[in-house]
């Protein structure tokens, strides 16, 4: 199988994964309307037809999503690209024998703003979405959007979907599914690649999600290995610091590295203490607060202890005033 460009190849593989044998790719395909018994389509050269490159994502029983891939380097897709696809999809629907055709245009370099009116009025979906801001999405993000849309669309079709058939129903459906990628990409950029990660899923996460998931949980055990420091928490959850990265979520019981007692310090004066001392001090305590200082991460505990995770070191400080009278 040959592909005209990387985008086409990637999109076809996504469609194949999701739609199986109902995903097809055709180059220079001459598409012809299905109903040829209409007087208005009679011509000397036969019924209307057009040569196109198309990826079709098919859904049972009779829905076909016609995908047009536009890989223009740094240039954006133009209204003429949308108009062309609108003509194809519109004509296919008008002279259909029972199949329902939807249209999707993917242009990772974006669309000029003039495309939106043509897409909404023709009920064509655009990836990436037009958000009235010069929002730049990575090539990979456009592919992620495509996968999300194709999966969700298949499941959505299992329910009544009349509102998707008329403009701008399908356009809006895809817009709603793709607009939130902006927040994810911004977060990734702010975290310089991804400081927070959800255990098990490998998904990018955030400090806010960590607080929502972990605060209020009790410490079941402390984990120290050659690669990470962390906590086992009630509710089957875990928290780990691995290098600059913070991983948390459902405990998979497999922290990286081999067991290794960590260097431990106590009090603001950083006095030496044993790993066992820290363990006994914080076990069964509830996490009441969290703070990320970039260089290290701290939890506040219910027994007025601040537990700091430094690279390869745990640091405990009692916060009860006066500090001097409450040294550990």
């Amino acid at each position, binding site marked *: 199988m040959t592909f005209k460009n990387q985008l086409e190849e990637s999109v076809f593989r996504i469609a194949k994964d999701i739609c199986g044998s109902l995903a097809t790719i055709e180059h220079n395909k001459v598409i012809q309307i299905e109903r040829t018994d209409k007087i208005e389509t009679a011509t000397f050269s036969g019924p209307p037809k057009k040569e196109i490159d198309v990826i079709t994502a098919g859904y049972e029983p009779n829905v076909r999503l016609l995908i047009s891939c536009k890989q223009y380097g740094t240039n954006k897709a133009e209204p003429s690209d949308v108009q062309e696809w609108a003509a194809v999809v519109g004509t296919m629907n008008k002279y259909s024998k029972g199949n329902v055709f939807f249209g999707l245009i993917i242009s990772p370099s974006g669309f000029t703003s003039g495309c*939106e009116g043509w897409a909404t009025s023709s009920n064509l979906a655009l990836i990436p979405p037009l*958000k*009235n*801001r010069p929002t730049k999405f990575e090539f990979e993000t456009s592919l992620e959007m495509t996968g*999300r849309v194709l*999966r*969700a669309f298949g*499941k*959505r079709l*299992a*329910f*009544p979907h009349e*509102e998707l058939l008329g403009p701008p129903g399908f356009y*809006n*459906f895809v817009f*709603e*599914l793709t*607009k*939130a*990628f*902006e*927040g*994810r990409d*911004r*977060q990734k950029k702010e975290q310089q690649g991804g400081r927070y990660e959800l255990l098990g*899923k490998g*998904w*990018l*996460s*955030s400090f806010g*999600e960590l607080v929502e998931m972990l605060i209020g949980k009790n410490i079941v055990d402390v984990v120290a290995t050659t690669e990470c420091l962390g906590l086992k928490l009630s509710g089957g959850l875990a928290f780990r610091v691995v290098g600059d990265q913070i991983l948390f979520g459902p405990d998979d019981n497999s922290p990286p590295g081999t067991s290794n007692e960590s260097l431990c310090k106590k009090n603001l004066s950083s006095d030496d203490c044993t790993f066992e001392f820290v363990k006994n001090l914080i076990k069964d305590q509830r996490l009441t607060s969290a703070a990320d200082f970039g260089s290290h991460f701290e939890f506040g505990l219910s027994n007025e202890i601040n537990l700091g995770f430094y690279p390869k070191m745990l640091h405990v400080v009692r916060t009860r005033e006066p500090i001097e009278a409450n040294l550990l």
Partner: protein
Amino acid sequence: MKDKHSISFSTEEPILFNSNHERIDVNKLIETCMKDPKRILVDDEIGVVVYVGDMGIYRVSAFGDPTTGQPPPDPNGHWGQQVIQISRVRFPARIIRHQIGSVVMSITADSVFLIREKYIRKIRAEDLEKGMVLHTGEKVYW
């Protein structure tokens, strides 16, 4: 509740109610839907989207009908818009506040509104300005 025929997608945390006019908690509704895999349109790094179109869920809106532009029937009327799907986003956009008509609302900066000028056009919530008028007739106060 005056009308149940208009349709909306719901991406914020709106006030939801059922056909008995009972308030529904968005998070609980999503958790309920998550138990039925058919309803989960997508659950990934970006967030969760569930289908609720057949559950008789409505959202309260103080704005006019989003499709026809028809205003709420009376100034105190609540406009019930049927909700088809609900999203919970893991990385929401920045939240901003506006007073539009009689309502002060917290919305994400990238929410889309329709305003009436020489023609109806879309505008991001963060670009709404005092004095603009939505296509449904409500004025932006701040």
